[in-house]
């Protein structure tokens, strides 16, 4: 089941390979069918999922069965390395609470991404092949339970992303693509080192040999004393944690590693921005929850405060930077930085409310930011510009668009009744509850105001008031005294067309529905999150033993 959902897009990619490049429509439809099938599978997995099983660590006895679900585990690469013993890499997939939400999100965003890729005309075949590759890699990352497999998917993601930005991007695309590539590569190189270190420090209790299994790694009992990352070499564990954290933090992106994000977003085409903000950023925090924190719980305990401070910096710094932006897409990009700060803050709290808020925020940020970028894409398609000051008064002429913008904007600023609010609120509840992170939470609430400030200000400048004198659209008054506008070389419908509505309305419905009653998603998480919180509290755990 999981293999299907992971490799469906690649199969679609192979099919596309066989389609002649001139048959653009067929290529698009094949991709769409694959994405939809992925969506159906995701829903099946969701229905199939038993929320009472915790995941995160193995069931008592060391086996992942009974803790994770939909497990697929077969040996993949087995090499005899002589004195090092056999090298075992497994093809090991499975889901638990923290991954199933991400699987759902990825499937959803993939469909949206295909739809929003429809207008792309340049080298359609290559584009969709890369797109499908990216889709597979993302999905793979979220279901892989073998560190090596995770790493393979993680690296696999880089390549299509690089080309998708570098070929189909904006005017400064090479710079952005290279920057993205180098940044993430920088992060993953260190990850590789830590991964190997972990391999030699951990023994799977079931097989008795070294393993890359994240499930085995998450249990501190499986670490061998005297190994490089085992008990007794604390300084190495600290270093490994820090290095791994930086690797994931780049992806989040966390201040001061965030500068690739605005560039990448500004240059990337709309669907890629949607994927980037909707799914890829979550990989950073997902990695932290799945790998970084449970593998080094005692270091995490020591570093909570620092992580929280970085979260707060992200929140406030991102909001301030967003306030100063002139480019709408850049503003949204900085808002992503700000919102991912909430995730970090929630993780730093290390209690159920905070972690739950963080994970829920990951899901909500995925849907909300996807909406934001789609909406930015809509106006960019029409005006070929995203300068906030070059519009004004659009609400009078594009009422549907404005309506959707208001939903998305208010969801982003955390209005109750929309999903973003609940996750932000939970993050604050969690981080305030812990005495360690309480001061940070008290500072971070300022982010609520500044978040509202930049969003409302941009809303006002673009949509409210009157047409600016140097606006990018023409105003005409017809014989009846009605005002009409048109953009210079836009032939399509002025307001949102059917395709755009097809993308935006489901997202909007999800945002509203999960804002009113979050349990359909949140119910999947609670058991796993509670387990994770337990795993992350080694002091309490040792007291129990």
């Amino acid at each position, binding site marked *: 089941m999981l293999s299907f959902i992971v490799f469906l897009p690649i199969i679609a990619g192979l099919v596309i390979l066989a389609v002649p490049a001139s048959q653009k429509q067929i290529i698009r439809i094949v991709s769409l069918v694959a994405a939809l099938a992925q969506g159906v599978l995701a829903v099946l997995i969701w229905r199939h999922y038993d929320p009472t099983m915790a995941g995160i660590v193995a069931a008592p006895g060391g086996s992942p069965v009974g803790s994770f679900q939909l497990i697929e585990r077969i040996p993949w690469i087995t090499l005899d390395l002589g004195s090092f013993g056999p090298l075992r890499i497994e093809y090991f997939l499975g889901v638990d609470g923290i991954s199933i939400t991400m699987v759902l999100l990825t499937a959803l965003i993939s469909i949206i991404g295909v739809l929003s890729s429809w207008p792309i005309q340049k080298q359609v075949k290559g584009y969709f092949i890369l797109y499908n590759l990216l889709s597979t890699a993302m999905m793979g990352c979220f279901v892989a339970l073998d560190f090596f497999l995770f790493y393979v998917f993680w690296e696999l993601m880089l390549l299509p992303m690089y080309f998708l930005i570098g070929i189909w991007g904006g005017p400064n695309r090479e710079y952005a693509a290279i920057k993205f590539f*180098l940044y993430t590569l920088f992060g993953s190189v260190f990850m590789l080192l830590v991964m190997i270190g972990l391999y030699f420090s951990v023994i799977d209790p079931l097989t008795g040999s070294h393993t890359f299994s994240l499930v085995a790694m998450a249990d501190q009992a499986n670490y061998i004393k005297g190994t490089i990352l085992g008990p007794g070499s604390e300084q190495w564990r600290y270093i490994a944690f820090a290095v791994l954290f930086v690797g994931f933090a780049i992806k989040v992106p966390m201040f001061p590693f965030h500068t690739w994000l605005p560039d990448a977003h500004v240059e990337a085409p709309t669907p890629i921005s949607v994927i980037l903000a909707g799914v890829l950023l979550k990989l950073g925090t997902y990695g932290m929850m799945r790998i970084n924190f449970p593998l080094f719980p005692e270091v995490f305990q020591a570093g909570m405060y620092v992580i929280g401070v970085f979260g707060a910096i992200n929140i406030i710094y991102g909001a301030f930077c967003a306030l*100063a932006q002139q480019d709408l897409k850049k503003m949204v990009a900085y808002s992503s930085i700000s919102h991912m700060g909430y995730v970090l803050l929630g993780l730093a709290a290390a*209690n*159920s409310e905070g972690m739950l808020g963080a994970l829920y925020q990951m899901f909500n940020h995925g849907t909300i930011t996807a909406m934001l970028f789609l909406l930015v894409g809509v106006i960019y398609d029409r005006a070929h510009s995203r300068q906030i000051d070059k519009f004004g008064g659009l609400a009078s002429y594009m009422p549907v668009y404005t309506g959707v913008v208001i939903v998305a904007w208010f969801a982003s600023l955390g209005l109750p009744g929309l999903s973003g609010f609940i996750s932000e609120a939970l993050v604050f509840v969690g981080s305030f509850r812990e005495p360690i992170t309480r001061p940070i939470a008290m500072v971070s609430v300022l982010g609520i105001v*500044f978040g509202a400030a930049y969003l409302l200000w941009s809303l*006002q400048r673009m949509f*409210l008031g009157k047409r600016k004198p140097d606006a990018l659209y023409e105003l005409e008054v017809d014989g009846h005294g009605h005002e009409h506008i048109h953009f210079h070389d836009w032939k399509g419908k002025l307001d949102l067309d059917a395709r755009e509505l097809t993308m935006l309305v489901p997202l909007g419905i999800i945002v509203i529905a999960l804002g009113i009653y979050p349990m359909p998603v949140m119910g999947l998480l609670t058991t796993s999150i509670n387990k994770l919180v337990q795993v992350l509290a080694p002091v309490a755990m040792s007291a129990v033993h």
Partner: protein
Amino acid sequence: MMHSLIQLSIAVLLLPLLSFVVLIFFNRRLPRMGDFIGLGLVGTAFGCALTIFWQVVVQHYDPAFRLAWDFTWLDFGNVPGVGPLQVKMGIVIDNLTAIMLAMVTLISTLVHLYSTGYMHGDPKYGRFFAYLGIFTFSMIGIVLSDNLFSIYMFWELVGLSSYLLIGFYFYKDSAADAQKKAFLTNRVGDIGMWLGILILYSQYHTFGYQEIYEHIKNGDFHMSQAWLTAAGVLLFMGCVGKSAQFPLHVWLPDAMEGPTPVSALIHAATMVAAGVYFVARIFVLLTPEAQQVIAFVGAFTAFMSATIAITQHDIKRVLAYSTVSQLGYMVLGMGVGSYSAALFHLLTHAFFKACLFLGSGAIIHAMHHEQDMRWMGGLYKKMPWTFVTFSIATLALAGLPLTSGFLSKDAILAGALGFAQVEGGGIYYLVPALGFAAAVMTAFYMGRQVWLVFFGESRTHLKPAEDHGHDAHAAHASHGHDDHGHEDHGHHEVHEVPWNMRFPLVLLATLSVFIVFSPDPLDGGKGWFMHLVQTPATVVASTEAAHEGANLSVPEAGKLLAEAHTDTQHVETAPAAHAEAASTEGEGHGPVYADPRQAEIAHMTHANHWNAIKLSSLMLLAGIGMAFIVYVFRIIDPDKTAQNIRPLYLYSFNKWYWDEIYDATIIKGSMLISKILAWFDANIVDGIVNGVATIFRKFAFFNGGVDKYVVDGMVNFTAFTVQTTGAVLRKIQTGKVQTYLVMVVVAVLGYFAFYIAQLIK
């Protein structure tokens, strides 16, 4: 099985939401843009609310009535360290809820009805009703909430609806500015409220009022008392934002950019009062220190906005500042512990202020969207209905005996006097002093308004021609116009408004008369409201210091009281005796309070009842008399006086310059910080990144680029050194194999030399 009242209240909650959903999507496809749907659904909600009111208030008539229902909204599972944890949402119905429900739905229904006339012909007519629907929904949500979390949610939702309605004429820049300002200012208050909620949650893992109060009562608040005070003050910040208290009052006058029915519904009667309602909900956990803060904030707000209201020209702005001032009274009432009086004032104020706003809307409508009082006058003949209702409401606002406003305002001021005495006089007398000062001014500016609008000659023709433009007023105070595009000002026939706008006025004016609330025109305490809504016993123990302070102050306060007012027979010294006295006081005057300070205040409040009546009547007469002197008898020329005290006049006219101060500090400051940080981001953070990248690149092309790069970048000395080195190095690279060979031989010889040196050694 749910209680039928709960079912009804859910219906009250959801009917306006249904109205919103239907209207926002289908208003263009419905006949009359669906106004009948909005009116019908909200009217039905009013019917349900009235049923609840009937059952709870009339049939039960029990101060302790309380009905609650909740459901699990979020389930966190078995949380480590806490155990099973759920977030519940629920509804609580008590007397206050029932009254508020009836009030909110009544005014909402009336405003719907009124809007069918007022907003007629607006291109976004249908959407207006949709927005009213979502507002009503969220307001009812606030009223019904049984926990802090859901009240916070609805709190923000009313913020949204306020945002949407203020910016209903979003194509005007002033409206767009005002809506943003309103939302952001409220958010600042909400931060505080949210932090307060977090403090309480972090202690008890619950948001429910009742659970929290139980916990506090049992004394298991694990942080210091200062945190509890902080929680109270922070929660109060939510009220500061929503009820437009100083220092977050700046948004409310600007919010008058919205259509006038909206001003009546949201920015006068209901939403802004939600702050006071919220303080009432958290009243029991306020520590004495927190109460003092609240009292001072309220008193200062009441006074400050009254001074501003005196000089404003815009009819709605005067009313807006009077609203702020009256909200200040309510907050003051909460602060001094006169819980029921503050809520009473909330209720009476809602009716007469809604009446005033709707009346001003009628005037504006009739005057073809003229809002400046300087160009009105002489309307009483042309608009008799409006004149009569407006006058009744004005008298109620000013606090004339026989009106509802008198009852409630008097109760608050009595509480303020009692509070000052209990707290030990001195600075605490500032609270009632400011309150009475505001009362004088209220009477004065309302008298001024009525005179300017309804009496004298019509001054329409006096209006300078250049003021006809839309943005001409921006120079002094950006007046909002409820215009529908290009109306022409001025010289049209002024006529009375149609019935659908007149009916609400009449009904609301009727509700501003004393008899509705109390049989005794001088004592609200004898009315049903004060019986049903009684000040609850605080759950916070008075701190020892406050207790002692109260003990010390009582004799002095008593003496003072005895000297000044001989008809006060209760001069006691021991708090316990006060409590007894209070309990034996007779019918309807409050329960027994275990907390000595609260008992003291309750007692003193009652004791000061007559003082307050006397004083406030005096103030009223002074205010109205002054208005008559200035505007009717023209003994003092207002313009000349304004010239004589020009700095004061300007200070008041420019609203104490709060907008300018905030603009110069907070807004400019934030923008500056954001620019600096953006620069920092683009140049420093990214600069470092790019710098590292550059270094790597330069490294890679070392052969080709190093000397050039270094020469360019370094100062002269370094440049020289590098140049020399570069020159030497360049000589080495001749491209001739033989030269390289010579180098090799030299190196070999060097080795020999080393070898020989070793041997010699």
